[in-house]
C-alpha cells in the first residue's frame, strides 16, 4: 500500500472545487450592491440587514427549530420505547413491524408527503363537517415529522439492544429491582448512544425537510425550507444569498469548534494513559 497518493489527492481537490464553487458564488454575491446574480457592482451589507428585518424569514427559522426540536423529542421517546418493544417481540410480528417501520425510510419523500396530506385533509374535512374549524397547520406538520423521524430512531436503537448483555438486566431483576427500574438503570444507559444518535438524525432530517412539509402544512405555517422555496419562485432577492452565507458560516463554525473540542478531549485521554 505504498502507492502514490497524488491521484487520490487530485480527485479530492477536484471534488472539493465542485462542491464549493457554487457555495462560494452564493457567498460572493451576498455582498453585491446590485440585485444581479451574475455581475458584481460593489460591496454592501444591505442584504444582511434586510434579512434580519425580514419577519417572514425569522419566524420561519424559529418555527423550523421548534418543529425539529419537538418532533425529534417525541420521536426519540416513542422510538426508543417501541424499539425495546419490538426487540422483545416474537419473530413474526417483529418482522411485520420492522417492514412497516421501513416504509417512510424507503418511500420517496413526495409520496410520504402526499399520502399524509390525503389523511390530514380527510380528517380536517371530517372535523369541519362536525362544525369544528380546523385546517392543516403546525399540528399536522408535527405529526408528519414525528412519523418520518421515528423509524430512524428505532433503526439506530435496535442494534444497540442486540449488543446488550441480557444477564445484567436479569441480574438486576434477581436483586429485586422492578422491571421499570431495572430498565432505566441497566438497559437505558447501555443503549444511550443509539438513542442519542437517533435523536440527532431525527433533528437533522426534520430541519432539512422540504417535501413532506410542503404537502402537510396549511395556511401560512411555513418552515424555513418552504420560505426559501417560495423565495426562489419569485423575483429573487440577494437576501437568499445572505441567508445561505449565514447558514454556511454557522455550520462551519460549529464543526470547527467541535473538532477543536474533540482534539482536546483526545489529548486529555492520552495524557491520562
Amino acid at each position, binding site marked *: 500500500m505504498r502507492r502514490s497518493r497524488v491521484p487520490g489527492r487530485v480527485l479530492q481537490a477536484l471534488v472539493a472545487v465542485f462542491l464549493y464553487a457554487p457555495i462560494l458564488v452564493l457567498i460572493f454575491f451576498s455582498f453585491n450592491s446590485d440585485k444581479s446574480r451574475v455581475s458584481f457592482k460593489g460591496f454592501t451589507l444591505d442584504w444582511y440587514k434586510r434579512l434580519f428585518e425580514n419577519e417572514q424569514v425569522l*419566524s420561519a427559522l424559529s418555527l423550523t427549530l421548534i418543529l425539529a*426540536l419537538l418532533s425529534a423529542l417525541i420521536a426519540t421517546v416513542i422510538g426508543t420505547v417501541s424499539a425495546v418493544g419490538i426487540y422483545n417481540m416474537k419473530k413474526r410480528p417483529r418482522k411485520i413491524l420492522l417492514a412497516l417501520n421501513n416504509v417512510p425510510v424507503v418511500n420517496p419523500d413526495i409520496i410520504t408527503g402526499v399520502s399524509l396530506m390525503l389523511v390530514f385533509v380527510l380528517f380536517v374535512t371530517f372535523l*369541519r363537517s362536525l362544525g369544528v374549524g380546523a385546517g392543516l397547520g403546525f399540528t399536522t406538520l408535527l405529526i408528519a415529522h414525528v412519523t418520518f423521524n421515528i423509524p430512524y430512531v428505532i433503526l439506530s436503537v435496535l442494534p444497540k439492544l442486540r449488543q446488550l448483555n441480557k444477564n445484567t438486566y436479569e441480574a438486576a431483576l434477581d436483586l429485586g429491582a422492578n422491571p421499570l427500574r431495572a430498565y432505566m438503570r441497566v438497559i437505558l444507559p447501555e443503549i444511550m448512544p443509539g438513542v442519542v444518535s437517533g435523536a440527532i438524525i431525527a433533528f437533522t432530517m426534520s430541519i432539512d425537510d422540504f417535501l413532506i412539509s410542503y404537502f402537510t402544512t396549511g395556511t401560512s405555517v411555513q418552515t424555513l425550507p418552504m420560505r426559501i422555496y417560495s423565495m426562489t419562485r*419569485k423575483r429573487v432577492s440577494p437576501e437568499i444569498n445572505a441567508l445561505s452565507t449565514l447558514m454556511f458560516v454557522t455550520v462551519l463554525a460549529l464543526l470547527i*469548534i*467541535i473538532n477543536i473540542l474533540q482534539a482536546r478531549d483526545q489529548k486529555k485521554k492520552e495524557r491520562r494513559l
Partner: protein
Amino acid sequence: MKKNVIILIAALLLLAGCQSATPAQGTQTDNAQSGGGTQVSGDVYVFNWGEYMDEELNNAFGEATGIQVHYSTYQNNEMLYSTLMGGGSNYDVIIPSDYMISRMIEEDMLLTLDFANIPNFANIDADLKNPAYDPENLYSVPYAWGTVGIIYDTARVSEPVDSWGALFDERYSGEILMFDNPRDAFGIALKLLGHSFNTTNEAELRGAYDLMVTQKPLVQGYVMDQIFDKMENGEAILAPYYAGDAITMMETNEDLAFVFPKEGTNIFVDAFCIPKGAANKTAAEKYIDYMCSYEAGLANIDFTGYSTPLIDVYESLDDEVKNDGISYPEDMTGFETFTNLPGWVNDLYAELWTDLRK
C-alpha cells in the same frame, strides 16, 4: 464522526432555545397551532399572487388595527384552486381572477361579503361593479385590473413585434419564455388561431394544443414570477406577461418594451374574495376595506404597476402614467375577458396542459 454530530446538535439545540425565547415569534407559532376556528385574537390569513402587493401595507394594517396579517403567495389561479380544494387550508382573504371567481362561486367555495364592513367599496369604479363573473356583486371586491401582452428585448429582436406569432418564431428558439398556467398559455395559441379565449369547441382547443406542442422546443422555460429575473437580466428575448409586471421590468431594463398583439388579448380583473372556511370574516373584510383605501391603493398600484379600480387613486395619477398606453389603454378593441368554462372543458384544459408539459 458521530460524536462530532452530537456536539453540533447540542449547540444547535442551544441556539433553538434562544430563538424560541423571543416573545413575538412565540406568539406567532401559538396562533399557527390553534389552526383557525376559535381565533378571536385577530389574525387574518391572506393568500395572494407573488409580487402583487406592497407588503409593507400588511404591517401598517397590523399596527393600525391590531389584526396580525399572515401573508403567503401562490403563482396562478389554478394553484390557488388546488390549494383550496385539496390542501386543507383555511385562508381568510384570496385574490383570484375573474374566471376563477365565477368558478369558485359556481362550486360554492366563497362566502358572501358584508359590504357594511367595506365602506371603501364606494370608491370602486362603477364600470367594475356587478361584473359578469359576479353579477350581483355579492362575493368580490376588485383589487386591480390589467392586460396581457408581449414583453421583449428591443435590442435583440430582428423585427418589430406586433403578433403572438413572434412567440412561435424559430429565430428566437431558446429565447422564448411561456406562461406557466393553462388558461394564459392556451389563450395565446387560441388567439393566434383566431378563436375566442372561451371556446368550448374541442377541435379548436386541440388545435391550440398542437400549436403549443410545436412551440415547446423553442421555449426556454415555463415561468410565472421567475420571469422578472430572466427578462431583467436578458436571459430571454420574448415572453408573454401581465402589463403591470412588464412596466416593473421595463423600469429595471431599459431595452425592454411591451406590446399588445394585433390578434387581440386578455383583459382581466383580480378581486378580493373570502373563501369558505375563513375563520375571521370580519377581520378579512376590514383588511379588504383597508386595501381599498386611497393610501393603500396608491401604494399597491405604485408597487405592482397594475391598473387601479379605485376612482380617487386613478384621478390622482400623473398624466404620464394615465397615458403611457399600457396601464390604461385607449383602444381596447380585440380585448377579451376569460370566463368560466363548463366542467368538461376545465378537465380538458387540465389534461392537455399536463400532456403538453410531460
